[in-house]
């Protein structure tokens, strides 16, 4: 299943509806739903927030994979940004040293089973596996 989404946070609810439809059509364990929702949002929001020099829609594809889901987000006409290269977050730091932000891609790295990045012809493609 695949669909393109405009570069707006207002489309997050539309993406949830798309994911609802995918899960309804496929026999996938509900336990991976939260992982899919969170990782798709974090990656989509990151693309919308940082890849601001393009108006191209973002393509989201989902397909069943073993005991879970394979999800790919493709961002067109953008510079290279590998989500695996983000700085680690010190989650043991005391409150006074914690600042809002920076948790999104960290959570993605912790929750997915695997994540792959490909950059070719100014197109960023991120694929992750979410499973039990």
């Amino acid at each position: 299943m695949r669909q393109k989404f405009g570069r707006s946070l207002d489309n997050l609810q539309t993406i949830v509806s798309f994911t609802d439809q995918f899960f309804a059509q496929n026999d996938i364990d509900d336990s991976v739903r939260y992982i899919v929702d969170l990782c798709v949002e974090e990656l989509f929001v990151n693309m919308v927030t940082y890849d601001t020099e393009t108006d191209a829609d973002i393509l989201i594809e989902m397909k069943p994979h073993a005991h879970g889901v394979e999800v790919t987000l493709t961002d067109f006409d953008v510079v290279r940004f590998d989500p695996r290269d983000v700085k680690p977050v010190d989650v043991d730091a005391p409150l006074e040293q914690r600042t809002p932000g920076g948790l999104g891609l960290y959570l993605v790295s912790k929750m997915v089973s695997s994540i792959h990045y490909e950059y070719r012809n100014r197109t960023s493609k991120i694929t992750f596996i979410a499973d039990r």
Partner: protein
Amino acid sequence: MFQIGFGDAGTIIVAGRLDAAQAPKAQEFLDAITDECILDLGQLEYISSAGLGVLLRTHKRLMSDERGLKLINVNRHINDIFMYSGFDKLFEIEAAV
């Protein structure tokens, strides 16, 4: 659908999906809080890093006056997110029964 508002005895009820699109609404509401308070997350289905940022920003502001947020009725998925984020070390958290 995301909702935030006062419940009984001044508890703040947070319900629905707290994602990046809804975070400004939550932040606007919580910015008006000046005393320690309890957030009942029993009806919160989902939170992303944007929502975590709202909680952290509010908690830090209140803790600077030795107040803070207490999070109650936290479901298993959201509790997992709190643990991955280290929020279990920053907030007083009660899991849902």
